[in-house]
């Protein structure tokens, strides 16, 4: 993502050297070349993202029955989704509860991945001197992606399950008498799995911002008498902000839409915005699923807009 942004922001820089030499008779304009560069990605986006998205929005306003879509305007997908939201007050309706849970998980995962990811990136950027080691160590963070969800599910039971390693270890040390149940199929296990998966998405952009911090700035802060903490708060964090925001956007968008990990680790008993969509699709209720997808998109978009208000990514890059 950051690469695309880079290309769009700095179109003039890249063609400069190439065109000067090659283009004598027909000199391609810089803007044409930058269109060429951005074009393929734009076409992919148009064909596989924007157009389908338009269809999703259209279908979300259709009606349906047990076996087909009825292309007539209907708000049923939306009204059904918000069913009981006013009538059940002060209790939350289904969609309210679902989003509350999704946001809660999202916030916990975001806070933990940010904390962990920041320090991993800090370590990589400032304590690991060799470029090779920096590369090697950051590749280690991708290990969780080497396994599939099914494998992970099978792997977590022997570890966190009722008769798993952690429980039997704790029982042997005499810390507990009965197995601890909340280790698995709980909010705890969901957050654990998501953090374990997605900290990587935090580490990479923050690391990327940090290595670009001019070391002389840190020396200057030190010479001016700043403590380590003051340097961190006043120099490093502000300069690492773009990385923090990009990492946060990655983590938040992924967790908002996730239902597989939440389902597997939550024992299918924890609601997720994506899960509602899946249930609806499986019941062939496409307009209702589309309406839920539009709602999810709107909420995620809102969060990201708020975040980019805090930091102007374009400017900072």
């Amino acid at each position: 993502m950051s690469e695309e942004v880079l290309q769009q922001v700095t179109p003039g820089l890249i063609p400069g050297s190439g065109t000067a030499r090659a283009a004598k008779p027909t000199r391609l304009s810089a803007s044409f070349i930058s269109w060429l560069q951005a074009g393929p990605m734009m076409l992919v986006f148009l064909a596989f993202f924007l157009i389908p998205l338009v269809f999703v929005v259209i279908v979300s306003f259709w009606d349906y029955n047990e076996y087909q879509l009825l292309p007539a305007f209907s708000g049923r997908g939306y009204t059904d989704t918000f069913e009981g939201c006013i009538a059940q007050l002060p209790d939350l309706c289904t969609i309210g509860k679902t989003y509350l849970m999704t946001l809660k998980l999202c916030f916990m995962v975001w806070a933990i991945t940010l904390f962990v990811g920041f320090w991993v990136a800090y370590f990589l950027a400032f304590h690991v001197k060799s470029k090779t080691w920096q590369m090697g160590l950051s590749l280690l963070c991708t290990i969780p992606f080497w396994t599939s969800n099914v494998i992970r599910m099978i792997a977590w039971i022997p570890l966190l399950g009722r008769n798993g390693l952690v429980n039997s270890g704790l029982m042997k040390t005499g810390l507990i008498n009965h197995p601890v149940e909340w280790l698995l199929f709980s909010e705890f296990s969901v957050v654990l799995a998501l953090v374990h998966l997605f900290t990587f998405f935090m580490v990479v952009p923050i690391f990327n911002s940090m290595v670009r911090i001019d070391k002389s700035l840190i020396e200057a802060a030190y010479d001016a008498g700043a403590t380590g903490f003051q340097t961190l708060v006043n120099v490093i964090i502000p300069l690492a902000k773009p990385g923090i925001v990009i990492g946060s956007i990655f983590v938040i968008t992924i967790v908002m839409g996730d239902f597989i990990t939440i389902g597997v680790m939550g024992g299918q008993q924890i609601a997720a915005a994506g899960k509602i969509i899946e249930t609806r699709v499986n019941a062939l209720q496409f307009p209702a699923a589309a309406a839920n997808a539009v709602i999810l998109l709107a909420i995620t978009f809102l969060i990201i807009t708020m975040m980019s208000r805090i930091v102007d990514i374009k400017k900072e890059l």
Partner: protein
Amino acid sequence: MTETTRKIGVSRRTLLKGTAGLAGLAAGSGAITGFPYVKSADAKVLRYLGTAVNEGDDIAKQCLKDTGIKIEYITATTDDVTKRVMTQPNSFDVLDTEYFSLKKLVPSGNILALDAKKIKEFNNITPVFTKGETPGGKKIGGQGTAPWKVLYLEGKDSKKFATSATDFVTLIPTVYNADTLGIRPDLIKRPISSWSELLNPEFKGKASILNIPSIGIMDAAMVVEASGKYKYADKGNMTKEEIDLTMKVMTEAKKAGQFRAFWKDFNESVNLMASGETVIQSMWSPAVTKVRSMGIPCTFQPLKEGYRSWASGFCVSKGVSGAKLDWAYEFVNWFLSGYAGAYLNRQGYYSAVLSTAKAHMEPYEWAYWMEGKPAEKDIKAPDGSLLEKAGAVRDGGSYEDRMGGVACWNAVMDENDYMVRKWNEFIAA
């Protein structure tokens, strides 16, 4: 179907082989003749869309040997099979699906009923499908989408189910079974005889149900009825009030921490049970066998309120005609001629034509699987692996006892849309 991932290994393998074979055929013929379609038009190929239950490499191989028809499996989950019929009716020839999907499939007009007169063994199909009773004359519970309610159409292109027998059959029956709760007798240590035990606080945090709304709610209804809270007119077709009531009972249990996890696929159910995370849960017969083959005691427990049953069968896509339709009939006739039936019986399912399957099984196998007698010799799966040692008796006993004990059938309710919304509410609670 519910059966989707019972044999995920097999299905994935056959799927891969199928696609590879198809690619190979296309590439090979193209390279040699330059007319890729000439060869495929000569070969008798049927694209077979279905869930993994009826599919097996051995069945496809035997079929090719006996009839020259090459079966190309397209394997998907029940939901995805239905979705595919709705959205891409030309992407398959033969459809293998469950009776309860018919309420969605028939009105769509995307499937073609088969002619009973062209099915050789049609009159030998078990009366479970045609009359709703066992061969021994036991009446079978008809709640839900019982096959005999949706077996016939009024006419060739009709979208209405006929109330009496006609020549137009929606699905030619192939396989069915009776499902119940699986338990871990070594951890429960006492007899279990009722569905109500699923919500017994004794098993708090150790119970599980199926996370497929239309089936999960029927298991829930069995529990509600067994605990004496309510008696349904039809568990497979509840009113909104009945759905509310059922989900309320389940929500209370969920909030009280009764359920360890809900499961959706075969392997999940096996893992939950084998690891001892759950000791009582809705389950499928081959999953119980799998747990047992790992050396862990597991019983497919017959319960006094009866079984929840399911059944599936064959029809063809509306796009199938001419020679292809003839092959489809040839294939369905072959399927009912015994080899496939015996294969399915040996996995713990039941075949639609019992007489032909019996002819393809050893007498001791038939006695164990169908008559509920103790196994005279070791019982082996179709792939040769050991399922039960000599002396074992099948859980639930004979065909008569198990099918005769069916209380209700997998179903799609009239209030399906409302039910799905309530199910989401239940998950969010």
